[in-house]
């Protein structure tokens, strides 16, 4: 039976191989893997990113490709299913033999593919803001680490709006929990009293916010200016903001700053109850730079729908893709190890009027912007960090990761190096 299969494979495979060999020898395309969910609950957010990568590939090909070769996208659908992410990643790396992968959204999907990328030595560009505490040789984090989003947001609320009491509201999973742990430590180190910080978590897709919003109101009635830091995820935001506005909480009284609400999330809803509330990102569609205008224009052209928007993870892919392209040019090859080494130190323009550079810890430099939500679903930038902020893989505010650094250059070559003990744990993740 087995041998029959083998024979059949030979019969079919041999002529096929003979056919493809001369073509491949002339001009093998560079394969770019796209690992974003196109179905299931995350499809809403991730489909956009797939389209972004396809657009970037098309643009690069129009410019003549890379190293004189065309780029060829290989799109797979992990269907919002975390184990499936690992399977599809394996398929991309070992079967399709892609040279680079752009993908993942949720932290759990990244954690699921991480061992695969390390085992098969692939390159993954991860474009979404995340909780940090990780640095892998094979992953390049183009989204924000907590110090590129959460910490500056707290600084803004405290210094510009005078917030002294903090309510941390989040969906119950790893990103909000870790981010809030870092924020708690940061606030305490800045002298905020124990009683002035409260954490609240809800299940995914929470729709009955009455008690929590009433609780926020009571928490805020203690005579100190109160702010809410929201790591509420996805769908649950709409009923959350509706309840806030119904219970009469105005942004000028109790500002809510969100880390997961962007243009894409706002485009599906009536933004009226959200006006004046805040979000912290590294990019807003409304940013007024020529490069951003050009990007928005080409996106609307590509997707052929004027109602579509651009958002922060799209910019992250834009930066990541250009960094990879530059590193390939620099290395003169798509060979993984050469590109990984070439990537560190690469700097490309971002969309907010500056340059982003890939740092030795595989995180990038970005500005942090605070925007107020407008009734058209766009953000008005009200504050931005004076310079670029360097993504910190291991938070300086958590006692267990304070002494840990990541540096993938020689001689350290370690994603988890303890500066106190001088040892590399060999582990890339917590």
């Amino acid at each position, binding site marked *: 039976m087995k041998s029959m299969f083998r024979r059949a494979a030979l019969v079919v495979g041999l002529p096929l191989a003979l056919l493809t060999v001369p073509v491949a020898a002339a001009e093998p395309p560079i394969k770019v893997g796209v690992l974003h969910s196109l179905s299931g609950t995350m499809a809403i957010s991730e489909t956009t990113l797939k389209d972004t990568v396809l657009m970037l590939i098309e643009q690069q090909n129009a410019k003549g490709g890379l190293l004189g070769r065309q780029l060829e996208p290989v799109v797979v659908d992990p269907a919002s299913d975390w184990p499936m992410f690992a399977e599809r990643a394996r398929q991309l790396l070992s079967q399709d033999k892609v040279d680079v992968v752009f993908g993942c959204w949720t932290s759990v999907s990244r954690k699921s593919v991480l061992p695969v990328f390390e085992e098969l030595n692939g390159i993954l560009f991860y474009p979404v803001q995340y909780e940090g505490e990780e640095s892998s040789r094979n992953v390049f984090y183009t989204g924000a680490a907590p110090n590129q989003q959460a910490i500056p947001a707290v600084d803004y609320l405290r210094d510009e709006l005078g917030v002294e009491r903090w309510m941390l509201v989040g969906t119950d999973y790893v990103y909000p929990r870790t981010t809030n742990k870092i924020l708690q430590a940061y606030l305490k180190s800045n002298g905020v009293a124990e009683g002035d910080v409260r954490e609240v978590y809800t*299940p995914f897709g929470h729709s*009955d916010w*009455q*008690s929590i919003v009433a609780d926020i109101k009571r928490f805020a009635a203690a005579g100190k200016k109160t702010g809410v830091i929201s790591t509420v995820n996805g*769908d649950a935001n709409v*009923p959350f903001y509706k309840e806030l506005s*119904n219970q*009469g909480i105005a942004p*000028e009284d109790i500002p809510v700053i969100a880390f997961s609400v962007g243009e894409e999330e706002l485009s599906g*809803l009536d933004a009226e109850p959200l006006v004046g509330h805040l979000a912290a990102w590294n990019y807003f569609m409304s940013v007024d730079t020529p490069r951003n205008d050009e990007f928005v224009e080409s996106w609307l052209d590509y997707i052929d729908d004027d109602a579509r928007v651009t958002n922060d993870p799209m910019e992250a892919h834009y930066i990541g893709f250009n960094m990879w392209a530059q590193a390939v040019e620099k290395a003169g090859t798509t060979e993984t190890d050469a590109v990984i080494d070439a990537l560190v130190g690469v700097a490309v323009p971002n969309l907010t009027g500056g340059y982003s550079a890939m740092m030795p810890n595989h995180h990038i430099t970005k500005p942090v912007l605070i925007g107020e939500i407008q009734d058209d679903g766009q953000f008005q930038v009200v504050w931005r960090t004076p310079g670029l902020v360097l993504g910190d893989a291991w938070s300086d505010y958590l006692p267990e990761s304070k002494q840990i650094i990541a540096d993938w250059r020689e001689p350290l070559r370690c994603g988890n190096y303890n500066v106190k003990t001088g040892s590399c744990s060999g582990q890339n993740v917590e």
Partner: protein
Amino acid sequence: MGYKCIRVATAAVLLILLILGPAAAVERPFGEILQALPSASYEAKATLIRELAETGHPRAVPVLRALSEGDLYVRKADQRVFIVRKGEGGYDLVDPLSGEPAGQAGRRDVKRIGINNTLRNVLAAQLASLSLAAPEAAVRRAAVAQMLGELDASLAATLRARLAEEPDRGVRGMIREALALVDLQAADEATRLAAVQTLHGSLTPEARVRLMALAADPEAGEALRTQARQAVASIDRWRSFYRLMETVFFGLSAGSVLLLAAIGLAITFGVMGVINMAHGEFLMLGAYTAYVLQQLLPGQVGLAVVLAVPAAFAVTGLVGVAIERGLIRHLYGRPLETLLLTFGLSLILQQAVRTIFSPLNRSVATPAWMSGAWQINPALALTYNRLAIILFALAVFLALLALLRFTRLGLQVRAVSQDRQMAQALGVRSEWVDALTFGLGAGIAGIGGVALSQLTNVGPNLGQAYIIDSFLVVVFGGVGNLWGTLVAALTLGLANKFLEPAAGAVLAKILVLVFIILFIQRRPRGLFPQRGRAAEA
């Protein structure tokens, strides 16, 4: 010649200003300050807003209100400031100084004058002091509420003057409270004591904060501190009472949402015994009907929601009848196959909606009469949308009960569900009744979906979020018993909301589920088990 003219004019103006008084001499005219707004930084805007308010210009209130609501724009061509009303296809300009219409402008011809939260605060404070003498009591009340706890000496004097001429009792009470908050810091003991007395029953958060501070203040006299402590204790008693009321309200509203989600299933599963996994998708179809109607009736949000109720009933009811006639009737008496069939149906319906409407959530607007809250006092507010949902859920429940109890269809439904053969023998067309019953259950689910569209996201996954809860409610209440469904829904809602403050939203949900598991083990037939022949069948 020109210079001379100007000089004479300036002299005249100066003379007038001198007569008007020294304060007026430094003031710039209203229009000039207004024109400076667009190019000013946020800090400069704050100063300009105060200057605008201080001119006492009759148009100050509408202009500042327009600015705070984001309706103040600058025309790019000539940098003139206008109030903008959004009309069809473009913006209607209104001259800010005269309030007269000033033509139209395209969307891109004008630019909004941006404000941030700090400016919103400044605007709210200025508007409040300007609207103290507004004709409507509600506006005056809001104005005093805005000032509460932030009074300076001059505003306090204004308020004291206002108190004498204020006709509305409620507003007078609020002014007294605001003044008492000021008097708490007065120099003499008697005034402070009187202020504490005034604040005794006050529920405003500021009053409690100030009284707490006073009670802990070592410099205050002993009598004063005791009084303050007592006042805080009495405030806390009232607050915990209102908090209880609030929790009951939250529980009832959570329960009524469960009731709306489950009541359709109480018919299809409870009365007919069909394990209907597509029930959640009937809810979803109802919600999408509301969305489609809002698209068909642009600008009439309220009417669309009201019309969506019968429309959703009709749409999902017809889908239900079609499904029953086409598929389910072939599988009566085979629960496992029915389960698989309806599960498949639910996937098909979800994907159909994804294909037709896109996988993104759709936004269903909430009518104005369902936004905001009924502020009974500073400690208790009932949101209108939840209030409406509670009443609506009860209305739907009673209507369904009446339909089953008093109509011929209801009689036949009950007859068929209790004893099919006997009903058939008495001339009831049981097949026809089956189709109508299933359609009724589906239609009621559709109505529930319209209500859900006002509370949560309208998307392809809407039904998934409610299917489990619906089955829980029906099983917990006792299959086949509508009253059981009502009691079960409200019990679960209340239990959830009473647990939530103590245990957190995640744990509360788990505790409720554990409770149901234990309960079903003790009483597998639910709260109100069905008795008689049907139960044994």
